[in-house]
């Protein structure tokens, strides 16, 4: 069987799963109103984690990606605070621009490093941002954060009930577009070069490519996704706090990526769905110990299903065939 056949065989069922997932998140909240916000959050976080999955393809783990998440969120918050009157579309454009610019600046420094040093430097940058957000009280309200007033969309203003569906479908559209875009990117020559950084960077350079430039492109895309996700979450939760940029948030994103499975773009959404659902229901029934439950889930996944939820399906299929 040729490589190509293997690839299509592996990707197709997952793409089907992704389509089903997007359809469910479009339809299910129509029946249960409280799911609208839940699914919107899942999709928004999934977009951020898509950026983490992208970098995982290059074998790099950013332990500071919450900084782009926070930059996206604070861009809308600052706009609301200092300019006033916002629009979802405007917020998204601004959040996208600011996180891309920051991603480019930080990226120019961090793409020179790999593995633990890459992770460390990302962490350092994100903690600088976090302490600025936390301590620049006159501008950021410190730990209380800034409220993000409910924006309109293209001039329309919504009631809270309608708004939760509006933001859900906006998130859904962006998530589907981001998923498709990342999928296409990873299948493109540029995406294959990104993967080559993980397998053998030196050979990539012997072929005449600049590994740094390849990684920088991936990094900026993933920063952009982080910013868009952050903007959406700030709009959904109507607040931006320094905690958005704290290291535990970065850890949470990596967690979700591994939970879903870092090998495929859909892993981001599978992981986000599981994470937010556990949190949603555990917080409702066992308010004190949702973090404990998530920690145990993570340990079980790492020890028994290191390829994440997506890997589980593949393992099941393989064992059904008598293993390979």
């Amino acid at each position, binding site marked *: 069987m040729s490589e190509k056949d293997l690839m299509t065989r592996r990707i197709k069922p997952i793409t089907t799963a992704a389509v089903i997932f997007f359809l469910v998140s479009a339809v299910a909240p129509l029946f249960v109103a409280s799911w609208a916000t839940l699914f919107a959050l899942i999709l928004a976080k999934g977009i951020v984690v898509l950026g983490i999955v992208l970098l*995982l393809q290059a074998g790099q*783990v950013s*332990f500071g990606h919450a900084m782009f998440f926070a930059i996206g969120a604070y861009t809308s918050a600052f706009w609301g605070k200092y300019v006033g009157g916002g629009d979802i579309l405007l917020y998204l454009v601004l959040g996208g621009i600011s996180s891309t610019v920051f991603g480019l600046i930080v990226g120019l*420094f961090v793409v*020179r*490093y790999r*593995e*633990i*040093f890459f*992770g*460390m*430097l990302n*962490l*350092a*940058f994100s*903690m*600088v941002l976090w*302490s*600025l957000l*936390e*301590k*620049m*009280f006159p501008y950021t309200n410190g730990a209380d954060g800034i409220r993000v007033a409910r924006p309109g969309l293209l001039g329309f203003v919504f009631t809270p009930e309608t708004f939760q569906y509006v933001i859900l479908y906006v998130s859904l559209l962006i998530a589907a577009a981001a998923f498709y875009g990342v999928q296409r990117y990873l299948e493109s020559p540029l995406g294959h070069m990104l993967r080559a950084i993980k397998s053998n960077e*030196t050979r990539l350079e012997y072929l005449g490519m600049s590994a740094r430039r390849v990684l920088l492109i991936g990094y900026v895309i993933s920063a952009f996704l982080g910013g868009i996700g952050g903007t959406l979450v700030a709009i959904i939760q109507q607040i931006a706090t320094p905690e958005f940029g*704290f*290291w*535990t948030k970065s*850890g949470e994103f*990596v*967690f979700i990526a*591994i939970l879903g499975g*870092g090998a495929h773009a859909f892993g981001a959404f599978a992981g986000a769905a599981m994470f937010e659902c556990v949190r949603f229901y555990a917080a409702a029934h066992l308010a*004190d*110990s*949702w*973090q*404990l439950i*998530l*920690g*145990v889930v*993570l*340990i079980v996944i*790492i*020890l028994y299903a*290191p390829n994440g939820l997506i890997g589980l399906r593949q393992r099941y299929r393989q064992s059904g065939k008598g293993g390979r």
Partner: protein
Amino acid sequence: MNSTLAILAVLDGISYAALVFLVSVGLSLIFGVLRVVNVAHGSLYAFGAYLAATFSIKVAPLSPWLTYPALLAASIVIGVVCGGFIERVLLRPLYGRDDVLQLLITFAAFMIMDNLQRLIWGVQPIFAAEPLKLLPNVTVFGVNYTSYQVILLPAVAVATLFGLRYFLRRTLAGAVIMAVTEDREASTSIGIDARRVYFVTFIIGASLAALGGALASPTTSLVPGMGADMIVLSFAVAATAGLGQIEGAALTALMIGLTRAFVIYLQPEFEVLVPYLLMVLVLLVRPYGLFGATQMRKI
């Protein structure tokens, strides 16, 4: 800034640096040997602090002097029980697997411990200043300060530094640890049990974190979130020094402690920023840290 304030800042910086050193040297030691960044390190620090407070509140009515052995006992209990559990049960199945998984499983341990801490000790601040009150105050260049903070803490830190140096350079057990750090495969082939070395090293590192917490408990109120703050701070120190560098960690802790103390008196709002800003600046110029050796790029 007058001279009294300057001396006060220096003393603050030294006592703070001593605590940070204890925690970050444990982190650095674990990384040096296991090549794992232990994200749960801050939680070990917090558990050490809380258990020490619990112990010392229990024994203080018998005799206040018993609080000192209580601090030590708490840190050893946490180091052996929690540290041992993390290494034996969580990390051991993952050796040789993807680095991300090893890092992430300690993140899972962090989440669980953070939650357990709130379940066991609650969210109200806990105070246990008995050991601090027991020792007299001293006057340093006209500044009155608790001798617990300016003498005991730095003394413990210096003793730890030299103790670790002696242990790693002069004893057989230390030589075995160094051998595994240098080349795991070669040391295994001459009969060293690398797994046991990992286990022991992790327990030592975890105990140092817990000791840092236990010694910090009399000087501060214990609140949720102290672990999450400490792990990034100690990581900043360890990374700035160069992961695995013991003497470097001591110097960097002193540098960061003093800078932070002066910033608190001059520009208090930038207090939190200092360690991270230093870390960014150092890592940009020297990614292997101030004292770390440059590694060859592998082909």
